[in-house]
């Protein structure tokens, strides 16, 4: 590669200096078990799954309708995170 830069591919154990953890803390379990946003209770997790859905679509982009839907959900999630549920 240019500028005498070489890339060394490493296993996770070598790269991190330790094995991957057996379990994960602080992650919504629904994010690890579901691919369907509408079946998930946590709003932040719903948004993440929607992101993943959009990111894995064949054309990789959102339609205007999807954008509006996503923006409204993001706004709702933000309002909820600020504790304004009324």
């Amino acid at each position, binding site marked *: 590669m240019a*500028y*005498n*830069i070489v890339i*060394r591919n490493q296993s*996770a154990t070598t*790269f991190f200096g330790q094995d991957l*953890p057996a379990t*994960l803390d602080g992650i919504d379990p629904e994010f*690890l078990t579901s691919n369907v946003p509408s079946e998930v209770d946590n709003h932040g997790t719903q948004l993440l799954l929607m992101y993943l859905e959009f990111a*894995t679509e064949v054309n990789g982009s959102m339609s205007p309708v999807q954008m509006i839907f996503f923006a409204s959900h993001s706004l709702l999630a933000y309002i909820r995170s600020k504790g304004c549920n009324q």
Partner: protein
Amino acid sequence: MLGFEESGYILRSRYAIPLNICGEPTQTVQTDICLLHQASTITLLVQEDKSELGAESKVIAEAIASFQENNRNRIRLGKGRKNSMSIPCITMVGTRPIFYVVPVTQQLCTAVEQGEFPEQVTEVRKCVVGAETQLSDGMERLDFRLEALKHFALFRSLAKSLWSDLLAD
């Protein structure tokens, strides 16, 4: 969700970093996402691309630009220049994350600025999630997602240990 962003850090998207390359100090590179510490130190770079090689070359250029920018800011703040910085980076090819540690030295930086080939080899370390799976696989697969999140959790610890060097006076 993964705890990369803490008090004192700010996440920026489409952040342009000046890059002095081949005697042209007016070039810039644009990160997809970067994490800034107190608006003066670039601590993490994230780059998306359609291809692994494309993302890799972009993020390495961004790491070199970050070295230059961080040192400019250190001088502005009355701190000494650093001769080396290890910058943690993530590339996303689709929904597949790839993790890097890019060590940038003053020698590499000078070579880039002057358009010369440095004598010293720079070894970038890289870890691909699910290296044995197809390139098209990503976090939409539940088993892959768990694996990726475990990598992210360890990368956060690794990045934080690198930041303590990066931010030290």
